[in-house]
């Protein structure tokens, strides 16, 4: 048994009692990375040296009886989309391949302040756009339960890293399901908090009104601890909520009395994998056996969620990604080559006698923009920029963007009405378990539909959590999604904890590769 097989709570206990050190813990996870990473590809960069220095620092603090932070000495992997001062922050994009922000994301600063050991930066879909981590410009990540399959995405690296016990804790971001879906597919706990609960400052934006940072862990108890460390109001983020952060890790083990669990019939409609359906229904039965009341509720507009999402998210993305133009930071096309290209095109046109076309050619500036963006972005990012730019264009705005905003309000209203009747809503995270790598890369629409169950929470801004609730015959994890009203993370975590303590799914680990 290695220290790397323990949960964050167990490790913290050992550390606090002086039975191990952060350096030992960090080494154990670095060893596990050494052994597993080649076949998983969860990390874009493992920051071994820095991690050991941080670990030694925390150990010294403990020895000196100094006050230590909430995560003192625990390794945390961070999705490569959160700025880490003077450290590469690439968003898995060529565009930011060499980008070192001169500032910390608030979440990263909070992790540092909580004495976490930042063990490495995890792989993701480029700019968090995708559901399989296959859109990374740099590498493929694999599902530790079956390396021919995807870990999900876009936070696939973080989910896989926790699933393969290469870190006890990881940070991801969730814009349409990018924490919950990979958590579900990798058999770990993943949570998207209420929009505004965790600061977005320093989170490289994909879709600003939907993006939210959240934890990955083996257990809800660990997830509660990590959320507590990173949540809270931030004056630098105008969309963050100015409310005190509850002590999630303190209340996590208190079961909820008289819990009312909502079940949505539409969640079990055609398209849901039978094995997933069985596992989710059994999970609901577990709640019943724990004394919870199960109530059927309706979310009539949720079926429009994906359509609305794929207007709103790309619209915001098209705007947020406009700054990657090669002028001030990030990738810029090779200038000599570009100028040569322009000169030869011009010559060709003039030789053909087409002076009008030669006059209408790109200026060097425009060509620089074009080439920089053509070379710096991958196909999925370009697709979404085009979708968004189209939806926001004059003449289309009302039919697409404005309409999508109306749907969004209706979805939120559905949830408000549902939560007047139930405390949490339970259902599947995805319609099927982890799919094969490469299976959907040529079918973007099928890939978008994977977000069916997760997107409504982002549109409504409510918290959602995925936790393991079963396995397929072939041994692939199945996730259960729980959703709660805004700012009810405490309720959500405790409801999930009840299930977790009544079952053993969270203790399952993938075979070592």
């Amino acid at each position: 048994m290695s220290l790397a097989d323990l949960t964050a709570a167990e490790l913290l206990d050992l550390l606090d009692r002086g039975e191990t050190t952060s350096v030992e813990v960090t080494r154990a996870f670095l060893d596990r990375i050494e052994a597993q990473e080649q076949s998983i590809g969860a990390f874009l960069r493992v920051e071994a040296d820095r991690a050991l220095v941080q670990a030694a620092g925390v150990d010294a603090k403990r020895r000196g009886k100094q006050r230590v932070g909430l995560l003192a000495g625990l390794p945390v992997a961070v999705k490569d989309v959160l700025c880490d001062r003077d450290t590469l922050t690439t968003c898995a994009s060529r565009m930011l391949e060499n980008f070192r922000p001169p500032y910390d994301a608030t979440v990263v600063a909070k992790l540092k302040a909580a004495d976490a050991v930042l063990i490495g930066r995890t792989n993701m879909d480029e700019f968090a756009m995708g559901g399989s981590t296959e859109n990374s410009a740099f590498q493929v990540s694999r599902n530790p339960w079956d390396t021919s399959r995807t870990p999900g995405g876009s936070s696939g690296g973080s989910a896989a890293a926790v699933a393969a016990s290469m870190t006890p804790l990881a940070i991801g971001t969730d814009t349409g399901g990018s924490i919950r879906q990979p958590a579900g597919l990798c058999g770990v706990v993943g949570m998207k908090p209420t929009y505004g609960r965790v600061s977005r400052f320093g989170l490289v934006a994909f879709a600003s009104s939907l993006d939210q940072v959240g934890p990955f862990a083996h257990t809800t108890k660990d997830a509660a601890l990590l959320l507590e460390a990173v949540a809270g109001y931030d004056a630098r983020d105008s969309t963050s909520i100015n409310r005190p952060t509850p002590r999630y890790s303190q209340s996590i083990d208190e079961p909820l009395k008289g819990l009312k669990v909502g079940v949505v019939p539409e969640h079990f409609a055609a398209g849901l994998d039978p094995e997933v359906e069985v596992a989710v229904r059994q999970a609901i039965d577990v709640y019943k056996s724990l004394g919870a009341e199960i109530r059927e509720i309706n979310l009539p507009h949720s079926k429009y969620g994906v359509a609305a999402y794929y207007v709103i998210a790309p619209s915001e993305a098209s705007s947020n990604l406009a700054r990657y133009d090669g002028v001030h930071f990030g990738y810029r096309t090779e200038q000599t080559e570009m100028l040569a290209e322009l000169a030869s095109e011009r010559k060709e046109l003039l030789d053909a006698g087409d002076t009008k076309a030669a006059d209408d050619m790109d200026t060097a500036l425009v060509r620089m923009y074009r080439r920089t963006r053509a070379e710096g972005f991958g196909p999925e990012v370009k697709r979404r920029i085009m979708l968004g730019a189209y939806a926001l264009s004059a003449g289309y705005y009302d039919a697409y963007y404005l309409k999508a905003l109306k749907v969004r309000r209706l979805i939120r209203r559905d949830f408000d009405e549902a939560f007047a009747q139930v405390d949490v809503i339970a259902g599947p995270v995805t319609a099927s378990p982890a799919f094969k790598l490469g299976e959907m890369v040529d079918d973007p629409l099928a890939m978008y539909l994977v977000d069916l169950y997760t997107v409504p929470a982002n549109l409504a801004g409510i918290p959602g959590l995925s936790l393991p609730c079963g396995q397929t015959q072939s041994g692939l994890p199945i996730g259960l999604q729980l959703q709660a009203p805004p700012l009810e993370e405490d309720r959500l975590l405790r409801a999930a904890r009840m299930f977790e303590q009544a079952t053993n799914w969270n203790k399952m680990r993938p075979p070592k590769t």
Partner: protein
Amino acid sequence: MSEPYTTVIGLEVHVQLLTESKLFCRCSTKFGAEPNTQTCPVCIGMPGTLPVMNRKAYGLALKTAVALNCNIPEFTKWDRKQYYYPDLPKGYQISQYDLPMSADGYLEISDPKGRFEPKRVGIIRAHLEEDAGKSVHDEAAGKADSEIDLNRTGTPLLEIVSQPDMRSSTEAKAFLQELKLLLTYIGVSDCNMQEGSLRVDGNVNLHLDHNSQRIATPIVEIKNMNSFRAVERALDYEAARQYREWQETGRNLGDAPKQTRGWDDVAGVTRGQRSKEESSDYRYFPDPDLAPVTTTATEVQAVRASLGELPAELRLRLTEAFELSDYDADVLVNQGRPLVDYYLEVAEHSGDPKAACNWVTQDVLRVLGDEGATIESFPIAAKQLGDLITTIREGNLPNTRAREAFNLMRQSRLDVATAIAQLGIQKVDESELIALVNELLAANPKTVADIRAGKLQAAGALIGQAKKRNANVDPNRVRELSIELAQQGEG
């Protein structure tokens, strides 16, 4: 107006608000720093950074909008205006699109010289936005590079859009002067055109009667007008040019897209720039990084109460309570609040608003003009100028020597009593003066005869002689006494 057309003018004014820091970050807005030294990750739009609204900037914008008699909606939001340009680092400008912070106001203009009737120029809207950076094109030989200075990026700008209510360049200039005056009175901007704190674009076209039909020429937007004088010249040039063009092409509004032309101040012409039609679709949408701003009626009332006396109100007070002429009131008010305050103190202290006005508008302003100084550094305190006026009124300082006293007070920073003493000015006793005049009459029988013959102006000859004997004599009194005593002698 002798032209066969009416010029129709609307103005778009960008005003830089007087904040210490930028609209969405804490960088300084000070003008003239080394390029790119007043920037931070937020204003240069680095990945992951987020804007946070500067409440002070919003407050100044609100103050301006209220002073412009605008309606202030309860709810306003921020939108992104998207286009690519190297001095726009985020690829979009945070601005306000369909729900601006204020709309439907007006500004009243008038001309004491009577070149146009007083009128109300409508304000369509005033909204807040962030400024872009500056592209510096190095045109030195062999250097094709452009450089970008992002110090200005994110500076708060208030865009004020007028209705096309102005009918001449004179009216347009008057609008700008009145607007500038208002903005400086309420302290929201320094309106320095050289530093770009006030920028003006104009929209112009002509209305004319043709074959008994009222027609309009295509609208042209004029940019690059860097002084009020330039605005006046550019508008005049453009009106004449449009008339020529209309005569040549017969093109009416709708026949051609809106055109943008730049004013070349040296050549004195406008030149065509990119056509508005090919300019981009800005793909405006609400900025998801910023919360909408709400303003209550109570807040608007508080702002209104805090405005103080605005130029128009002040002019009215000066003409009604102080009985100054429109012209004098205009001269005083247009000099700015500090000069008006100075005047008010002089008027109060001397108890003679008219004399105070004369001294301030003639003597004080002349000195300020000659020295390029402002009233704040003027060496004669308002109370002392008031004393000077009182001293004259009480007959202790002859008008003829008042300016001498004024100059000495100014140059040597003396109060009026000391200045008079240093100049040796003393009130001449009436009996002494009678004796002096009698002496002079006796010595100038020709003058006496002339006066008696009704040629009263002959008395003037005695004034010079009297002054030679005693510098302090009041020439008017000398004249009066000469006539009186000469005529008495007759009887």
